[in-house]
């Protein structure tokens, strides 16, 4: 395992990918501190405000501490458009490591220090706002927490199921094997995205956001286990012929004990590769589901449901900052893929 990691760091692409993911996860961990606003903060008078402009040279042409102006929303009677104008009457200086909205760090420790904020009357929207006047930058951080963990959680549900199912099917063989594999094949024969949206739509409304999150994890796991179980079964078929299995049988181990204690541990390296390779596909599935409005629901944020607003033409053309979650998904998936590819190359016996 250590060897794999050190080889991983030798590969240029994989190293960059690891660093990128590290930065993303760190940022998500400290989201409360890094975000200027809390998740639920909204200023209804500030819908669709463009990103705040930050000035470091003042109107006299001299350097100054960085400051920003608020926006004023005006309806232009002639062109029938909403206009956003800087309100140059009042400057708001950026304050670092100072008090802002209070939050609970990691949900426990009450704090109110933010990396960067402005005075309470000022507004600092680093990436503009959405339709409800919520800060896109802050929501990106909070949404990332959901988008970037849901894949791992789904895998933790899916792997035990897949391992046990594949292990039992492969070890017992015979009729049990045939029936179990036919069932797995049937699950695989339903186009996965169709199954995904149907399962998501079956969820009753009126659940708390935590319940919904957990159920989506379960649904993602329900889609993926069959393919995984099939590969595990194939491996078990070859492992069970080896001598140590015979030995375990002779000393009277139970069948389940043999499967869990002796056979399944042999598949570890495959499991690790399969894990790194499949995380990105769950990130993509969740974002697709939320994009359609069937996944994580408002007011919670996830990168997918933030992109839901990008479904409107006017939004994508006049408010490009609403597309930022898409770029983050792209970067995260790319990084996971690069790491997965490199791990596969390292474990490949041909090298």
């Amino acid at each position, binding site marked *: 395992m250590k060897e794999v990691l050190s080889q991983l760091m030798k590969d240029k692409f994989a190293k960059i990918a690891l660093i990128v993911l590290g930065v993303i996860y760190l940022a998500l961990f400290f989201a409360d501190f890094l975000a200027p606003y809390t998740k639920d903060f909204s200023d209804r008078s500030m819908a669709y405000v463009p990103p705040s402009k930050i000035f470091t040279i003042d109107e006299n042409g001299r350097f100054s501490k960085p400051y920003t102006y608020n926006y004023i929303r005006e309806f232009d009677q002639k062109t029938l458009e909403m206009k956003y104008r800087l309100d140059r009457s009042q400057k708001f200086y950026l304050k670092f490591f100072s008090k802002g909205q209070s939050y609970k760090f990691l949900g426990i420790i009450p704090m109110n220090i933010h990396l960067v904020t402005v005075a309470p009357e000022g507004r600092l929207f680093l990436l503009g706002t959405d339709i409800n006047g919520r800060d896109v930058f802050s929501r990106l951080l909070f949404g990332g927490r959901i988008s970037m963990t849901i894949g791992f959680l789904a895998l933790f549900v899916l792997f035990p199921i897949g391992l046990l199912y594949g292990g039992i099917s492969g070890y017992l063989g015979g009729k049990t094997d045939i029936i179990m594999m036919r069932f797995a094949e049937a699950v695989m024969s339903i*186009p996965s995205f169709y199954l995904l949206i149907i399962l998501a739509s079956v969820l009753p409304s009126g659940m708390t956001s935590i319940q919904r999150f957990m159920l989506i994890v379960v649904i993602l796991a329900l889609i993926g286990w069959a393919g995984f179980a099939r590969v595990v079964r194939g491996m078990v078929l070859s492992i069970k012929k080896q001598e140590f299995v015979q030995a375990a049988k002779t000393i009277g181990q139970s069948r389940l004990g043999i499967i869990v204690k002796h056979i399944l541990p042999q598949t570890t390296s495959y499991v690790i590769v399969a894990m790194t390779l499949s995380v990105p596909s769950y990130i993509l599935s969740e974002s697709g589901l939320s994009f359609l409005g069937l996944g994580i629901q408002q007011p919670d944020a996830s990168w997918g449901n933030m992109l839901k607003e990008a479904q409107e033409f006017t939004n994508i053309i006049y408010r490009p900052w609403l597309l930022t979650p898409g770029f983050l998904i*792209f970067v995260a998936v790319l990084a996971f893929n690069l790491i997965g590819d490199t791990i596969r190359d390292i474990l490949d016996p041909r090298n």
Partner: protein
Amino acid sequence: MQILIYILKRILQTIPLLVIVSLISFFIIRLSPVDPLAELRLNPSVSQETLQKETQRLGLDKPIIVQYGKWAKSFVKGDLGVTSNGEQVSSKLKERIPNTLLLTVIVIFLTWIVGIPLGIFAAINWKTPFDRILTVLTSVGMAIPSFFFAVLLLIFAVKTGWFPVGGLTSANFADMGIFSQIKDMAHHLVLPVTVLFTISLAGLQRQMRGNMLDVLDSEYVKFARAKGLSEFKVIFKHALRNAVNPLITLLGFEFAGLLSGAALTEYVFQYPGLGRLILEAVLKSDINLVMASLMMGAIMLVLGNLIADILLIITDPRIRT
């Protein structure tokens, strides 16, 4: 003769598979607390008579096993019931399935034509800058969320005005001659095909590269080289045939992936395909339509795998024994 028996066996195997698929989908949908006829009841243009007929057909007053039996019987007979708008489900499916097939077949065709040569060239030029660049490009292609890419292309279409946004045909499609009709459809297909092509090309190219590398490493290729055959002959006459075979097995999976990927793409481009149909049906909780399109998706997938298997029997004589 042997081949025919094998193919026949393979076809018979799909029947229990489809039965299990239908059982799974039926119970998932019936697990939901949604009244399958709620929408139909609310629609004033649907007559009491139709409602009565539907309740009878679905056997809603009977236990769930009987309901499944009734549903399966009418499905086999080809009676798929009515949608919440009172339309026939079967006519709706007849309208949408060809569109999805058109899209996926074009995409598969293009990915094979482009992906196989690219995979071969990457394998021949293993670890050269050309191979490296291709690997990076395919990683990028695999990482873009399909719906996000579709949205980006929509912006492009709106800004430049080069491509129509949404649908498969223009408003005046019916008045066109046959050639302008084909041109019109092709014009509408460019963007959705681009999205799906980019995403599936990456996977195919990598698979082909991997297979080719495996084959080039094998004994018989070394022998062919030692015999003094030209590199061109070694690759295209000896190596290629064995490297392509695993891809044929993958064809079925590729088809499955495309059906799923197409759902989101169809949704963004408002393309009238099966994926969008099922999505709309799910959002409206139109049970008949969901059930029928889910089964159709599964049948298409199973058929795709079947065709791939049969192709494999034809190309790879080792399988027949």
